[in-house]
């Protein structure tokens, strides 16, 4: 399938906050309750539509490497967007945000869009971090913020799509250099103007004989 743009994302945050689940929910629309490190999705892709343009998202999950920040660092430079995730039921994952953010800012290109995500919003009874705290942190550091649940899928689509919208807007504004692939953005392969799938266009079994589908 052809696309207008391709964005590369990474998902970062402490281990156990639900990064892999968020990715799985977004790409496969399912929730895997058991924490299985061996399955480690690690990579997922999906097509979305913004402004009636097809946009392909390629998402890397830093599965099992959270403890090795230095490995995660290798992914910053080439990413257009990052989802920085904490767990609203575990305060320490919120406390670690600054380190994650410093790292990301230091190693990424300056235009990388960072979305702050407070995950596991379905576990209201065990909440340790107030929504307002997340909002305040995001405001302070200039991030977009959202609470999600990988379990109920609440806000999961929005989190990924809103990030893409931000990137898309930056492209429109000309902030992103889209010709530099190191920014995590690719322009789609040339959209052939002679789209054969247009109904009624050209006689079926015409002399072109391009049987491609």
């Amino acid at each position, binding site marked *: 399938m052809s696309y207008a743009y391709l964005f590369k994302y990474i998902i970062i945050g402490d281990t156990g906050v639900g990064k892999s689940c968020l990715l799985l929910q977004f790409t496969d629309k399912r929730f895997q309750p058991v924490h299985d490190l061996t399955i*480690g999705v690690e*990579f997922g892709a999906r097509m979305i539509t913004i402004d009636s343009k097809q946009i392909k998202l390629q998402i890397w999950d830093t599965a099992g*490497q959270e403890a090795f920040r230095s*490995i995660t*660092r290798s992914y910053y430079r*080439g990413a257009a967007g990052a989802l920085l995730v904490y767990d609203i039921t575990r305060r320490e994952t919120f406390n670690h945000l600054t380190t994650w953010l410093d790292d990301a800012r230091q190693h990424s290109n300056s235009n990388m869009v960072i979305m702050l995500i407070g995950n596991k919003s379905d576990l209201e009874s065990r909440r340790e971090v107030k929504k307002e705290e997340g909002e305040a942190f995001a405001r302070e550091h200039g991030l977009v913020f959202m609470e999600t649940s990988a379990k109920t899928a609440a806000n999961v689509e929005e989190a990924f799509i809103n990030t893409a919208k931000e990137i898309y807007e930056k492209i429109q504004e000309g902030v992103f250099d889209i010709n530099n*692939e190191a920014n995590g953005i690719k322009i789609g392969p040339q959209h052939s103007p002679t789209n054969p799938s247009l109904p009624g266009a050209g006689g079926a079994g015409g002399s072109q004989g391009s049987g491609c*589908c």
Partner: protein
Amino acid sequence: MDYFRSGLKSVLGPPPGNQPTGAETVERLVSRVSTSTLLEDRRDACRALRALSKKFRLEVGAQGMDVLRQVLELDRSDCEIVGYCLDTLCNITAKQTFEEEIDNAVNNVQLNVGEDFTETFVGEQFTEMFLKNPENVNLVLSFMEEYDFRVRWPAVKLMTSLILSKPKVVQDIILVSPMGVSKLMDLLLENREVIRNDALLLLINLTKSNANIQKIVAFENAFDRLFDVINDEGGTDGGIVVEDCFLLLLNLLRNNTSNIHFFKEGSYIQKLAPMFTLPPNLEEIGWSPQKVSNFHCMLLLVRTLVSPNNPAQVVAACQKAMRNTNLLEALTDILMAAGVPANILTETINTVGEVIRGNLTNQEYFSNVQAPSNPPRPVIVVLLMSMVNEKQPLTLRCAVLYCFQCYLFKNEIGQQTVVHTLLPSNEAVASVTTGQLLCSGLFGNDALSNWFSAVALSHCLVDNPAQKEQLLRVLVATKAGAQPFGLLQQCAVFLQRTARLQSKLGVLMLLAQWMAHSQQAVKVFLGVSGAMAFLTAQASASEYDDNEELLQGLCAFLMGLCVAFNDNSEPNYSKENLSQLIEKRVGIETYCRKLSEVSHHEVYALAAKQPQPRAKHSGDLLLEYEFCQLFKSMEGVIYQALGRQRDLFSGISELSLSEHENALLVQYKELIREQDKQIQELAANMGACKMRCKELEAQLDDLQETNKQLVDQNTLLRAQLAANSSNIAIQDRHLDLSSPPNDSENSDLLEKIRKLESDNATKAADLDRIRKDQDDLLELLTDQDVKLNSFKDRLKELGENVDDGESDNNSVESENS
């Protein structure tokens, strides 16, 4: 050589009196690099060091490493001197031995009297010294950002040399080095081809068996880069660089699910597919050796994506993409193209197999492909003709079997289609069919064809009760005009008649697949005269040679299936009668042993490892993957069936035991208890022995490590000693010629030498002692091993299942080219 000398002369001036030794020269150059205040001077000295770094590698490395490192830091703005240093470091850390070095070692016997030190070890040694400080790797990485050819190229070469010597260490450093992988990946955009090509080699070595690095390299757009290079270099018609690109792709994808997923999602299969289309004039121009290599890599690449070892979901997605991008079509075209080299054809058959395996759409596509023969025949038929043709090479025949198995894997329709061709029908069949080929192969004169056909046919029956039943309807005419005979009966007769082990095993596997879960098939088998007697005789045989234990085990297995899937309709061979037969004629113990001999056999282990049948020699083909699966799942079922029968049987009999028998029973129970105790003791004993063995091994490792360190120290000390003595020689000469003797310095040096010499002597003594210790320990270890084995044997005699802990390092992979 003369060139070097004259170069040296100009740097050093004429030698005072005698020719200086290599060590002396190196010593002077090193001191010059470190003390001279003129860049010009340091540069000349570095150039000279580079010239000497092959022949006098030990000296340059031992004396110059630190200085060279310093230059890299302090003179980093001067591209010329940095280039010399990197080159020099590259030479001294190289894994290979240089010719010059050997010459030198021969001429320079006094340095290594009675010692056979290997030069390759020196390279590794210097690499280790260089890597002690991880910053050095970052330093080299930083030089890759320098555009100047004199710096970037040797930096790439040095890094490659380091990785080749100590892959794990360098990988770990680069992984945590900020933007480390990125810097290396940028090299693929280099427009100076030498650098780009060497960068490819660097990345191939860097990505070997390190999933994290593979992932990052892929993230850094490696797939795009590599396809760009491949296309720039002329695609499959390109040179060795194209092959290197494919090798790197293989490294990135092999066993890396995440990257495979990315490869598929990034539509790279689409880029791969057109490369498989053969140009129409290929038959005239022929296949160059490089094209064969490139193609082979491409086929491996496809197989890496759809390997049965990958998660099913990923495989299915890739298979679908391969069908949609017409990659499968291109592959089947190759099957029928003329002039394709044999090894490419074979590998294509394997590849087609894995692309269709377990994927109904692709299997159906494959079954509809027609070969352009006259008359046109399904490609499956043409392939099977090769499989049952003795004249075809073994690897090709194996490939066809594999492809056929893949075609039938989870394909009920395919299974039915094959069986259908054998059923009696009214329509006259004009052309040869798959079923006919297999049947004639099954009972023909070639043992391997028997085996191939039996296995192929057995795959029509896997998990397919309907076809087990249908196949029972098949009749074969043994001789023209003779009474037609059921296929199963014919198999049972053939089993008794043929003398060839391979044929027997093949037929036994077919029967087992057929009879498992099929009471009807069992019933037919039991009706064949002599069949059960044959099985019983085999299963109870106490002697065997070669691989006959497999035959006996499989016969026992078939007997077990006859018990487990018995509808009691043959009064002579009811469940109960059969289990008594096993108990009385074979003996339960013997029976169990026969079964376990199969699953513990190395042939079994090898076959159970992967679906693809692999063999170096035709005689190696004895067991097969699907059968091993069946065996694994049925073993328990059989034990259970036998156990239940036995319980019933003994339940009745225990009531009617005579006093004498009862006493006997008590006696036996006692015996068993006794043996149980013994077994436990022995097991405990063995545990202790294993522990002790481990301890000893650890000690041995330690000692070997110490030993190695001492040898290293020794080597370095020698080099230093040599350097020092040359130093003294020079000083002596100075003293002879000039000014009042400087006694204190001289005696200082002498003192130093004496100290080094005595150090050396102590070290040598230490080394001797440790060697002796090591020998003693080795002896001890052997003793322990012998003991351990005898305990294991005793345990085995006592019927305990002893895990021999043999690692299976018998993989016969012939991957890569």
